[in-house]
């Protein structure tokens, strides 16, 4: 999916980048990067760019956290983890900003300061998630540890 928006020269550079994956926080393949971008698009469309990177960073933080599955797909498809998976929004293609945000998060940009949860306080009734220690609020999302 992300190939669509690139020049052939960039595509080659990116394939090289995926090969040289040692510098990313976690090793991912193209399909996982696309999945990450689609979650960002579905969860944070309309949010500031920093907020989009933050959503992607939460997923990466979960992959690295011992209490969560250790792949992007494992985290995203964990039962009841993301509403956008349950309602099918995740299947819509990501836009350019979401792809960029996913890429930045994989490169270690983490505006959340290490959060592993996020929620929209206007939409969640869960007392448990609200009890998590808040690190930061970006746009409509609260990021917590």
């Amino acid at each position, binding site marked *: 999916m992300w190939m669509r928006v690139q*020049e052939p020269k960039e595509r080659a550079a990116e394939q090289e980048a995926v090969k040289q994956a040692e*510098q990313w926080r976690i090793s991912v393949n193209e399909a996982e990067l696309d999945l990450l971008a689609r979650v960002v698009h579905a969860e944070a469309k309309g949010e500031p760019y920093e907020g989009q990177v933050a959503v992607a960073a939460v997923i990466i933080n979960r992959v690295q956290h011992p209490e969560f599955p250790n792949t992007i797909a494992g985290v995203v498809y964990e039962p009841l983890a993301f509403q956008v998976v349950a309602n099918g929004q995740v299947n819509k293609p990501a836009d350019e900003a979401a792809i960029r945000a996913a890429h930045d998060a994989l490169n270690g940009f983490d505006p*959340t300061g290490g959060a592993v949860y996020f929620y929209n306080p206007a939409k969640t009734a869960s007392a448990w998630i609200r009890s998590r220690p808040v690190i*930061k609020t970006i746009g409509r999302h609260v990021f917590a540890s």
Partner: protein
Amino acid sequence: MKRWLGRAFPNIVFAVALLVLGFAVGQYYLQKAYQLQMEASYRRALREFAVHLTELSQDLGKARVISGSEQAAALAEEMRSRIAAAQASLGQLPLGEIDLSRLEQMMWQCYRSSYAYSAGQLSSAVLDALYEQISRASSEVQTLLASKEVESPWVAWNRYFTTSLVFTDSLAAALSSINSNLQELDEELAGLPRRAAGRITGEEISPAKAVEIAGAFSGRSEFEFRVVNETAGDIPAYTVQGSGPGDETLTVEVSRQGGVVLWMISSRAVRARQLETAELVQAARRFLEERGFPEVHVTDVQILQNRATITFVPVVEGILRYAEPVKVQVSAADGDIIGFQGVLYHLARSRYQSNGAEDVEQHLAVEREEAESKVNAQAVVLDHKLASLPNDLDETVLTHRLGVKLGDDYYLVYINAESGREEQIVQVSSPDFF
């Protein structure tokens, strides 16, 4: 007309009843087929879960005997991959319908403890408890799989017209029972050390100082910066945002202690590429030099949507420090710096300042020639450097970093300079990355 209707009425009722019956039977068989299909996929997931659980139990058994740290690290790595596979299988079961929380809990406790195990920080009592729990769960799941045949129950009337899926009740009950029979593991597990995030040290700065630092670091004199947010967590920080002409927003995170820039991101979309990769690297390197960073070595270049993300590692006394990377993003249209990331670099600096010394020993028990002799005989060694990198045990180890060519492919092979062990092998796209 009335008489005709009276005569035909029983026939009409009979036809409608026949249609309803046909529809119900059709629904029943569709539902049944769907249910059997899902049932089969659940059973497959359960069977895979059982296999991974058995393997994990065997690994834990071995872990109780192993005493060498290298073997322990290798086994811990293997256990983590088995746990990941078991978690993936578990995730395919209908967790919304049956409570398998303790099984899930046990998996992540096992995952966490694998790090403590490889670092020699897991007591034998906890290891025994884990082994006992996993073995019991494994044996019970195996027994369950052996005893349950595919069941074909009548579908209850209220499920005829629904598409809600029902995991065979007896199987769900048996799994729930296995789950509830698991004991809460020793509290010692809850207190296991986690990978330390580290701290940035230094004097606390004011929000006004953070604005000043962000403005100077970004080099955007035309931008107006202000503190828009604060970050709690491991590294408390001020989030400073700047906006200037156009719709670009620059966000800069400045640590409250020490006042260092942790990261900077820009919302700018770059529409065209005008610069070559070498020019982009040069712009990034200049940016770091002007901000007082030490000598750096470029290890990676990624270009996405005309934005280049370039990774550098510091070179201190000839050693490439892989655990302390800094990343710089450059606009491929005009060479403007639009992103920076240096959290690990600053954490390392703070650590060195606290320790009063840089923490990489330069003792080379394995010399360059010996390291090169450990590389596959078919491969040609083209380059040599020294590099320190984090290993599986979260220790920083000194390595010989050998750039090799095998056929048409290029690799970086990292040989531990103390033990001669292959720490890492990474394929790179060209010898430029040597």
